[in-house]
């Protein structure tokens, strides 16, 4: 429902919808997020304080982060969604397909010391239709109990089911596993996405996956890999670093392999035909205040996208280690890190998906013989 901007509209609105409580309906903001401990950290850092300050209720809708789901919801022009938490590749693609609304960086609050937002955010954080709020990482974690002797340490070990037997849980999506599969051949990170752009590169990557296919368990809900590891159902799993960390603080013997972690931006965006874009902007401005961002990091170790938020981080209450050392962007985790090429991701989405589906169905990504160059 569009918020009345002029008096006549307001009057008309009141006349047309009597007594059914339009005010109450207006005062709800629908935020789309990823559920689980991540959503809990958002509830503490953003949603509850926002409700308290504005009196507007935040309703959370959970989704799996896939672009197709996003498009299905936004395409028909009639959505309840107001603010979406999405990865940068989807932000780029959604923007170029006109599904998302451009955001003026001037709505963002300055740092406490007065540094304008444009300078306070890390480089590349202010996209045309999205504001990057944090850096998260897709990593491999393993169950300590599965490997009482030698521990897996490199990405090659993920595919070595001889030395490190056991099931592997992977996200059912043609991302991250493709990078890791090709990297396991020893290709340089700088050339990774160029090589994955060739038919030969994709072929090699899927061949590697095919080798361990029998051992793969697929997950779709981001909370699942940590649970699978904790319950001992799989020996290794791909997943987001924050989820694994949280599971570990609950007492599960889970260790993260930081080798070749894949870093990506997560961002706030607003649907192009949002009912209440001003309210959505108000929320994004609220949630990107350095103090709010730092608060979230205290509950899940993702790197905040503002320098001023970074400076507010101290010790983790549970581990008594500096929070910054748990972040994927900590210096000692960056040695072999890969920055996900979100541009490449956004532009190859359909191609990767087709290969992935072919491979799932036939065991060969190029069965439909239309493959890339």
């Amino acid at each position, binding site marked *: 429902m569009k918020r009345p901007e002029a008096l006549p509209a307001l009057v008309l609105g009141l006349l047309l919808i009597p007594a059914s409580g339009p005010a109450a309906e207006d005062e709800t903001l629908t935020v789309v997020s990823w559920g689980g401990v991540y959503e809990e950290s958002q509830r503490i850092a953003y949603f509850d304080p926002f409700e308290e300050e504005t009196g507007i209720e935040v309703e959370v809708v959970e989704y799996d982060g896939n672009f197709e789901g996003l498009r299905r919801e936004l395409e028909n022009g009639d959505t309840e969604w107001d603010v979406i938490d999405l990865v940068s590749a989807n932000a780029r693609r959604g923007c170029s397909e006109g599904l998302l609304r451009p955001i003026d960086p001037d709505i963002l609050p300055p740092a406490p010391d007065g540094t304008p937002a444009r300078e306070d955010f890390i480089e590349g954080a202010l996209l045309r239709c999205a504001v990057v709020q944090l850096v998260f990482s897709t990593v491999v974690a393993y169950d300590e109990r599965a490997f009482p002797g030698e521990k897996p340490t490199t990405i090659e070990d993920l595919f070595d089911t001889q030395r490190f037997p056991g099931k592997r849980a992977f996200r059912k999506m043609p991302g991250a596993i493709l990078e890791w599969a090709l990297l396991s*051949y*020893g*290709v*340089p990170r*700088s*050339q990774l*996405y*160029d*090589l994955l*752009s*060739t038919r*030969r*590169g994709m072929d*090699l990557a899927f*061949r590697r996956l095919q080798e361990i296919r029998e051992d793969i368990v697929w997950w779709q809900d981001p909370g699942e890999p940590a649970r699978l590891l904790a319950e001992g159902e799989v020996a290794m799993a791909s997943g987001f670093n924050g989820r694994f960390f949280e599971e570990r603080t609950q007492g599960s013997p889970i260790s993260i392999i930081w080798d070749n972690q894949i870093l990506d931006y997560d961002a706030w965006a607003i649907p192009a035909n949002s009912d209440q874009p001003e309210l959505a902007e108000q929320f994004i401005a609220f949630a990107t205040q350095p103090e709010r961002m730092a608060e979230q990091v205290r509950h899940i170790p993702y790197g905040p996208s503002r320098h001023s938020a970074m400076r507010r981080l101290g010790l983790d209450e549970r581990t008594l280690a500096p929070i910054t050392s748990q972040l994927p962007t900590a210096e000692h985790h960056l040695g072999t890190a890969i920055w996900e090429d979100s541009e*490449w991701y956004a*532009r*190859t989405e*359909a*191609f990767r998906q087709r290969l992935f589906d072919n491979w799932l169905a036939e065991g060969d990504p190029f069965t439909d013989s*239309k*493959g*890339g*160059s």
Partner: protein
Amino acid sequence: MQALYRITVLALLSIAIGTLASLAAIGFVELVAWLNDVLLVAPRARIVWETRPLLVMAATILAPTLGGLVVGLMLSRLISQGRGFTPPDAILAVQTRTPMPSFRDGMVSSLAAALSLGAGASVGQYGPMAYLGAQIGALGARLNLGIAHLQGVAIGCGVAAAISTAFNAPIAGLVFAHEVILRHYSLRAFAPTTVAAATGYVFANVVFEREPLFTVAFEGVKHSYEFVFFALEGILCAFIAIAFMRLILACQNLSDRMSLPFAFRPMLAGLAVGLVALELPEVMGIGYEALRFATIEGAFAGYELALLVAAKIVLTALCLGFGFPGGVFSPSLLIGILFGALFGMIVAQFAPFHTSGIVVYAICGMMAVTSPVIGAPLTTIIVVFELTRSYPLTIAAMVSVVFANLVAFRLFGRSIFDVQLLKRGCDLARGRDGAILSHTCLTDYMVTDYPRCDRKDSLGSLRARLREQSWDTLFVTDAAGQYLGTITARHILEQESECTAGEACVRSPVIFDETTSIRAAMDSLVDFLGEAAPVISAQDGRLIGVAPEGVVISAYLDISRELRREENEAA
């Protein structure tokens, strides 16, 4: 004071040339990468359009074809020599101390080379980059700094910086400049080229943080007997290199014999590349991706490797022969690494013992094909070391490289550059002095004050003249000054004194003209008996001077002495 001045000037000049050449090299690479993206040559650009195969197909054929047309027009219309320039042009200028082609022509050539690579022509990028560096060096040499023979050093600086930047390999850049361009070792040249190479490295690494070109993991050669295979691989690679070079020369000959205007020839080669690329996209451009996949076990089937080696050899020869400006280095790397991978695969499959995997054979092959083509064994060995930072790989590659060079040198020549220069009349096998002697004109040294007489003079009158002069010879000309013959004391003694000079003279068996070099003069004078050979104008036959043997010998001594001094000078 003089020494201090020279050291300061050379240091500043080498830093300036190093900076400019390095920036130019980075600009060149960026321009090519951008064009590759725009023209759908780069796999990354092609994959975006993979849902529209017709578009990709059209781009694959049209980019190199139309690129060839534009390049052909650029070269034939905008460059006075009507062709692109490559490292041999820089080598020639340095070795013979002749000027480089003009800066403007050089820039057009570099631009055409970037366009060729950008459009996917199967040529190399390091040759044009080295030439770009040489050109910037030559520009520096034109400054009036009061230092003798600055051109060679300055060009060396530019090339060293360009190669250092391109490969992220400063030592290789420095060695390449010495091995291929300067062809001698002296502290005078070594110091500035080192400074320039280091400057290039700083720009490539520190300022722009460019990634290393090539990284592979290799644990070491596991079995000592494999060194025999590295040597054998080197010998086989020599034959691949020779076939590649011969085919380039053959394509050049074919192109020269064609009636089609030069401007349209690259287009034909481009069309061939486009058609082959429909099936084998790896043949386009530099082929970074294929270069990387070749070191991965199982990335290519054996027949694919063989097919790609053959296609790359033929298409590169066609592109270079038909006038695409570009280098031979990158194609050699690709041909070599694919062949090396094939060799490694065959050895692993048929030999009754274990091998250390495909990587080492691929790298050995890469360098063993490249080294004889550019004639720089030391450079290629150091390139391996600097690119892979692996000592065991370098030792293995070293063995392959020397055997490849030995065989190719015997059967073909030192390098494609030297053979191309030989075709243009410059024999670098004769050493630096030989090259300078062949490019120093006799006219600079000839004697213009010599005894001459008219054809109508009687021998009697000449007899009197002979007594007064120190020469035993007279040169006979007609009224127009045209040379008729030489008359010696013996002729005058043997003939009647009424006889005229025109009747008695004998045409010298050795006659030089303005184009005769000191080298040619030396060769001709070996069997010459007489006081001096005449030098006559090639246009109108007028006698313009004479060349006594002593003049030729002193010219030779001058040049060698100066070279020795240059090679022993510190700054």
